[in-house]
C-alpha cells in the first residue's frame, strides 16, 4: 500500500517533468495539460481509495524505511489513521480540482509543472514518518505553491503577493526545523517512534509549542500570520486556489496536530490547549469579518478559509486541554469535530473556489461589483454555489453544520475542565465562534446574493454563459459530496476513529455510537448530552417542505404573474442599460456597510468619509469606505524597520579601514572558537 502511494508520488513528479519537457515543443500545451490534469485526477482518486481502504479496513500500520534518505539515516514513511484521514481529503479535493482544470482552457507550463509537484509534496508530508521527510515534503509543497501563485507574474500585484507568500513560507520552515530539532533532543533520531518515546519537558516543551504554532500557523494562515493569504488568492486560478484552500492549509494543520498532539506525547499539561484555543477563536472571528469586507470573490473565500482554519485549530486546542484533564470522551469529541470539519471544509471550499473559477471564466471578472444575476445565465453553477454557501454558513443538514455542531458541543462542555481561567477562555471562545459562524453566514449571503442574484452590474457580466460540461461535472460532484457528508457524519466519524485515537489517546470512544440507532447515523456529544440526527432532520425538512408546498398549492392555484420591479421609486434605467442601472442595486461595499460600522471600525480600523456638498451646489457628493487589516501593519512594519536599520548599520561596515576589516574577521573567528570550546566542554 505504501509502495503504491510512493509510486503515485513518483508519477506526480514524472508528470511535472513531462510538463516541463513539453514546454520546449510548441503547440503541445493542450496535450500536456490533458496529460497532467488527467494524471492528477487518476492519482488523486487512487490516494483517496488507498486512504479509505486504510481507514475502513483498519489495515496494520507498518513503517517502511526507504533505501535512501538524509546522511544520518533512512527516510521512513508510514500511513497511520491521521495520515490516512488527511490523505483522503487530499485525494478527493485534488481529483475535483484536476477534473475542473481538464474542462478549462489549457494552462501554461508555469502552472502545469508545479501543480503535480504540489500534490506530490503534500502527499509526501502526509505519509512521512520521520522529521526530515516531513519537512522535505512540506517545503516542496511550499515552493510549488509559490510557483503557482507567481505563475501570472506579468502583473506587479501578483509578484508582490508571491513574494509575501514566500516570506511567510520561509518563516514557517524556519520555525518548524528547530521545532523538530528540539523534539529530537540530544539523541538526534528524527524518526517518529523515537520522538514519541522521549516527549519534551520543561522549557523545551514550551519552545516546541511556540515554534510549532508559529510555523504551522504561518502556513495555515492563523491570525496574526495571515497577511499573505488574501493577496495570494487574488493571483491564483480557480483549481489552484481550490487546491491551496482545500488541502494545503489542512496539511499545515496536519503538521500542527502531528507535532503537538502526537509527537509531544500525551503527558503535556492541560494549559497547552489555551494558546491553540485563543489563536483559533481569534482567527475565526477575524477571518469571517474580513470575508464580509472583501470586494473580490477569491479573497472573500480565502478569508472564510481563515475562519474555518480557526475552528479546526480551536478543536485541536480543546483536544489537548481535555486530554490533559483526563477527559477522554470529550477529547475524542473535540478531535472528531476538528477532523470532520477539516474534511468538510476541504470539500465545500474546493467547491466554492471552483465556482469562483467558473464565474471568472464565464463573466471575466472576480470583482463583485462587476458581477450579478448569474443565476439566470449559469443555473447549474448557481445550484452548486448554493450548496457550497449553505455548507459554509453551517446550515443544517449540510456538511458544515455537523462538524460545527460537534465543535460547539465540545466548547459547551469546556467547563468540565476544572480551571476557572480555562472556563472563562472557553466561554469567550464560544461567543467568538458563534459570532464567527453568523459572520460567515453574512459573508456567504453577500457572496451568493450579489454574484448570483439581482441584476448584472456590467456588460461583460451580462454576457456570461454557463460553464462547459466538464466544469459543471467538476462542480456537481463535490456538491453531491457536500450533501452526503452532511447526511452521514456518523459514518465518517466511525471511519475517522483511527485518526481520533491518534489525537485523543488510544482508548477513547468515538462520538458516533452504533446503538441504539442504525450504525453511524447519530452524532452523540458525550454521555447523557445531546444528539444530532442529520438524516432524520433532513427527512423531516423534506417531508414538511413537500407537505407545505402541496397544501399551499392546493389552496392557492393561481399561476405566477410577472411584472416590472417596483424598486422603491427609482426611475427606469436609460435604454442603453438594458439590464437596469447597476447603481440602484446594493453593491459590495454597501452590503458590508452595517458590519463595517458595527464591528469593522473597532477591529479593522474601518472608516467612512462622507463629503456632502452644501445645498445648491450641483457637483456630486462623495462617499469613500475604507477598511484595512491592522495585523500586517503591527507585524510587518516593525520587521521592515528592523531590516532597514540592520541594513544601514551593515552599510557602515563597507567603509571600514583594512585594519578594521582584519580585526573584525579575527574577532569573529575568536568568538566562534570560544563558542565551540564552550559547547565541547558541556
Amino acid at each position, binding site marked *: 500500500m505504501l509502495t503504491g502511494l510512493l509510486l503515485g508520488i513518483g508519477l506526480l513528479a514524472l508528470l511535472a517533468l513531462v510538463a516541463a519537457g513539453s514546454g520546449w515543443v510548441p503547440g503541445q500545451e493542450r496535450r500536456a495539460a490533458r496529460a497532467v490534469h488527467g494524471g492528477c485526477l487518476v492519482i488523486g482518486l487512487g490516494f483517496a481509495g488507498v486512504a479509505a481502504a486504510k481507514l475502513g479496513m483498519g489495515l496494520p500500520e507498518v513503517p517502511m524505511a526507504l533505501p535512501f534518505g538524509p546522511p544520518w539515516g533512512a527516510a521512513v514513511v508510514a500511513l497511520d489513521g491521521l495520515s490516512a484521514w488527511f490523505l483522503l481529503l487530499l485525494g478527493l479535493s485534488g481529483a475535483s480540482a484536476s477534473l475542473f482544470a481538464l474542462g478549462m482552457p489549457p494552462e501554461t507550463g508555469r502552472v502545469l509543472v508545479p501543480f503535480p509537484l504540489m500534490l506530490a509534496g503534500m502527499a509526501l508530508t502526509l505519509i512521512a514518518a520521520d522529521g526530515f521527510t516531513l519537512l522535505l515534503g512540506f517545503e516542496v509543497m511550499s515552493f510549488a505553491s509559490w510557483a503557482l501563485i507567481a505563475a501570472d507574474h506579468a502583473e506587479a500585484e501578483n509578484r508582490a503577493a508571491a513574494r509575501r507568500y514566500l516570506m511567510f513560507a520561509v518563516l514557517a520552515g524556519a520555525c518548524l526545523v528547530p521545532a523538530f530539532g528540539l523534539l529530537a533532543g540530544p539523541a538526534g533520531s528524527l524518526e517518529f517512534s523515537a520522538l514519541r518515546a522521549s516527549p519534551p519537558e520543561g522549557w523545551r516543551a514550551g519552545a516546541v509549542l511556540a515554534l510549532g504554532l508559529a510555523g504551522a500557523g504561518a502556513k495555515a494562515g492563523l491570525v496574526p500570520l495571515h497577511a499573505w493569504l488574501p493577496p495570494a488568492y487574488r493571483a491564483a486560478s480557480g483549481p489552484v486556489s481550490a487546491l491551496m484552500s482545500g488541502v494545503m492549509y489542512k496539511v499545515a494543520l496536519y503538521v500542527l496536530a502531528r507535532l503537538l498532539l502526537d509527537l509531544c506525547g500525551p503527558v503535556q499539561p492541560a494549559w497547552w490547549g489555551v494558546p491553540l484555543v485563543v489563536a483559533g477563536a481569534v482567527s475565526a472571528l477575524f477571518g469571517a469579518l474580513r470575508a464580509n469586507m472583501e470586494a473580490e470573490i477569491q479573497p472573500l473565500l480565502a478569508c472564510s478559509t481563515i475562519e474555518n482554519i480557526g475552528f479546526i485549530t480551536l478543536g485541536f486546542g480543546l483536544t489537548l486541554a481535555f486530554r490533559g484533564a483526563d477527559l477522554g470522551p470529550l477529547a475524542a469529541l473535540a478531535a472528531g469535530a476538528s477532523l470532520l470539519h477539516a474534511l468538510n471544509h476541504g470539500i465545500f471550499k474546493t467547491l466554492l473556489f471552483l465556482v469562483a473559477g467558473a464565474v471568472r471564466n464565464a463573466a471575466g471578472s472576480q470583482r463583485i461589483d462587476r458581477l450579478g444575476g448569474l443565476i*439566470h445565465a449559469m443555473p447549474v453553477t448557481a445550484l452548486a454555489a448554493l450548496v457550497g454557501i449553505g455548507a459554509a454558513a*453551517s446550515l443544517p443538514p449540510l456538511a458544515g453544520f455537523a462538524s460545527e455542531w460537534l465543535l460547539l458541543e465540545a466548547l459547551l462542555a469546556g467547563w468540565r475542565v476544572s480551571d476557572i481561567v480555562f472556563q472563562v477562555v472557553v466561554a469567550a471562545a464560544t461567543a467568538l465562534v458563534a459570532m464567527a459562524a453568523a459572520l460567515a453566514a453574512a459573508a456567504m449571503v453577500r457572496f451568493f446574493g450579489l454574484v448570483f442574484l439581482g441584476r448584472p452590474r456590467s456588460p461583460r457580466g451580462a454576457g456570461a454563459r454557463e460553464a462547459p460540461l466538464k466544469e459543471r461535472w467538476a462542480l456537481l460532484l463535490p456538491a453531491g459530496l457536500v450533501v452526503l457528508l452532511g447526511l452521514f457524519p456518523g459514518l465518517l466519524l466511525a471511519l475517522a476513529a483511527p485518526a481520533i485515537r491518534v489525537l485523543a489517546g488510544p482508548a477513547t470512544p468515538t462520538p458516533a455510537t452504533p446503538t441504539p440507532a442504525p450504525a453511524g447515523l447519530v452524532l452523540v456529544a458525550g454521555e447523557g*448530552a445531546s444528539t444530532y440526527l442529520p438524516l432524520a432532520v433532513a427527512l423531516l425538512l423534506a417531508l414538511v417542505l413537500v407537505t407545505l408546498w402541496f397544501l399551499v398549492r392546493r389552496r392557492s392555484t393561481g399561476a405566477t404573474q410577472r411584472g416590472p*420591479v417596483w*424598486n*422603491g421609486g427609482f426611475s427606469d434605467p436609460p435604454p442603453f442599460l438594458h439590464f437596469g442601472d447597476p447603481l440602484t442595486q446594493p453593491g459590495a461595499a454597501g*452590503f458590508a456597510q452595517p*458590519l463595517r460600522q458595527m464591528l469593522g471600525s473597532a477591529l479593522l480600523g474601518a472608516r467612512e468619509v462622507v463629503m456632502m456638498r452644501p445645498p445648491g451646489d450641483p457637483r456630486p457628493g462623495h462617499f469613500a469606505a475604507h477598511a484595512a487589516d491592522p495585523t500586517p501593519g503591527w507585524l510587518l512594519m516593525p520587521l521592515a524597520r528592523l531590516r532597514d536599520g540592520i541594513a544601514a548599520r551593515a552599510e557602515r561596515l563597507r567603509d571600514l579601514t583594512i585594519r578594521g576589516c582584519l580585526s573584525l574577521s579575527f574577532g569573529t573567528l575568536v568568538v566562534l572558537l570560544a563558542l565551540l570550546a564552550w559547547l565541547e566542554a558541556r
Partner: protein
Amino acid sequence: MLTFGSIIVQALHLALVLAAAPLVVGLIRWLKARMQGRRGASPLQPLRDMLKLLRKRPVLAENASMVSEVAPYVACTASLVALACIPSFSRGMLLAPVGDLILLVGLLALARMALALAGLDVGTGFGGLGAAREMSFAVFAEPALLLCVLTFAILAGTTNLDLIAATFRDGGLGLRVSLALAAVAMLAVAVAENARIPVDNPGTHLEVTMVHEAMLLESSGRHLALWEFQAALKLTLWLALLSAIFVPFGTAPTGAGPLAWVLGLAAWLLKLGALCFALAVFESAIAKMRVFRVPEFLGAALLLALLAAALLFVSTGLA
C-alpha cells in the same frame, strides 16, 4: 422513544402551534391597539389576511429567479420543524431527541438566510439593505443565544431542550441569578430575532427604518402569505422556547395521560398569553432605536449571558 403516546402528543402539538401562530400575532396587535386607545382588529385578522393572500395570484419581478419562489417554503419549513421540537403542553414528544438547541440555532439561521436571499433576489435597494441589516443583527444575537445555551448546558448537562426543561422543572434548581441574567439576555435576543420594537417595527410603513419588511417588498400572493406565516411561526417559537426553559411548570411529563395534557395545555396558553401581554406592554412603552444602536442593545445581552456563565463558574464550585 417511538411510543404511541409520543406520536399523539407530537401530532397534537403540531396542530396546536399551527393554530396558535397566527393568533399570537393577532393577539399582540389587539393588545397593543387596546393599550394605545384604539379598538383594534380581531385577533383572527392575521389568519384572515393570510387566507386572503393565498387566494391572490403572486406577482414576481421580471428578473426574479427560482430563489424568490422557493425561499418562502424553505423558511417556513425550517421554522416549523424548529417549532415542532419545542415542548408545549407535554414533554416526551416524538421529536424530543431531535430537539437540540444548537440545531434550533441552525434552523433559525436557515430561515434567516432564505429570507435574506429572497430579499436580494430582485436586486432592489431596499431588499439589499434589509438583508444586510438582518444578517448583521444575527452576528450579535447568535453569540448571546449560544452563551445562554452554555448556561443551560452547565446547569442541565445537555443541550437537548426536552431534558433541559425536565431538569429545570424537577431538578430543584430554585431561583438562580444566572438563570435570571440568561432570561434577560434571551428576551433581548428574542425581540431582535423577531424584528420587534425597539430593533425593528413590524407595523412601519417608512421604508428606510425597516429591516424585516424591507426584504418582503417584492413578494405578494401566496409568497407573502408564507412569509407572514413564517414570521408568526418564529414569534410563537420564541415565546414557546422562553416558556419551555424559564417557566417549565405545569407541562405534562413524559408518558402522562390526557388529564395532564389538558392541564399542561391550560398552563401553556396562560404562559403564552402572559408573554404576549408583556411584549405588548414593552412595545407600547418603548420607542424604536436607531439601527446602529442595536449592536449596543444586543451587546448588552451578550455581556449578560457571559456574566451568567461566569457566575456559574464561580458560584457552583465547578472550578
